């Protein structure tokens, strides 16, 4: 299974990422999840979120999740980008792509990765209230 993982302060370039998708002849499905920073946190307007990662452990835990996904579903590739640092409201903080032969496994794996990530990958956020 092809894997790509980035934890980065750069803006997520969804267009460049999707343009670089590779799918071999047997692949029929690509599922994407894009997490967007909402303009409110606990009901109050915010300018954005600052994400902090324990990066070495975050990378390792992401790879463990990719291992598990690979064991459970026949996936051709998983690519994931998580931003750190300040992310303005309305911008993407997370981008995931799963390519698989059929849609069921692509959806299942993508949902698995984002759900488990929120349980085990050491990344935290801090809201910046609107002045």
């Amino acid at each position, binding site marked *: 299974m092809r894997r790509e993982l980035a934890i980065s302060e750069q803006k997520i370039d969804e267009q460049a990422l999707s343009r670089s998708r590779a799918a071999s002849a047997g692949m029929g499905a690509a599922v994407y999840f894009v997490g967007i920073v909402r303009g409110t946190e606990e009901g109050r307007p915010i300018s954005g979120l600052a994400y902090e990662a*324990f990066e070495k452990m975050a990378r390792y835990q992401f790879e463990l999740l990719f291992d598990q996904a690979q064991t459970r579903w026949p996936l051709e590739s998983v690519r994931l980008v998580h931003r750190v640092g300040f992310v303005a409201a309305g911008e993407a903080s997370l981008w995931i792509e799963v390519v698989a032969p059929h849609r069921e496994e692509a959806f299942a794996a993508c949902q698995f990765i984002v759900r488990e990530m929120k349980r085990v*990958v050491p990344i935290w956020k801090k809201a910046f209230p609107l002045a």
Partner: protein
Amino acid sequence: MQVRVHFYSYFKDLAGASEITEMIAPGARLESLLQQVYLRFPKLAAMRKSALVAVGVDYQAGEYLLAEGDEVSLFPPVQGG
């Protein structure tokens, strides 16, 4: 022996430090170290029920046997995404 303890997210603020060094008995378990840390930082102790604990890059439970050079990390529930 010495182990380093790292704090992340608001645990840094509660501890007033991003990392500390603790002296522990050789062969001590992770839970003994945590007790020591919680005694030293009462504000962290208040968070112990939700705290997550890793050694290196793996989550570990209290019975984990610490070794010289272990890097312990203590942090609140994760919130990525």
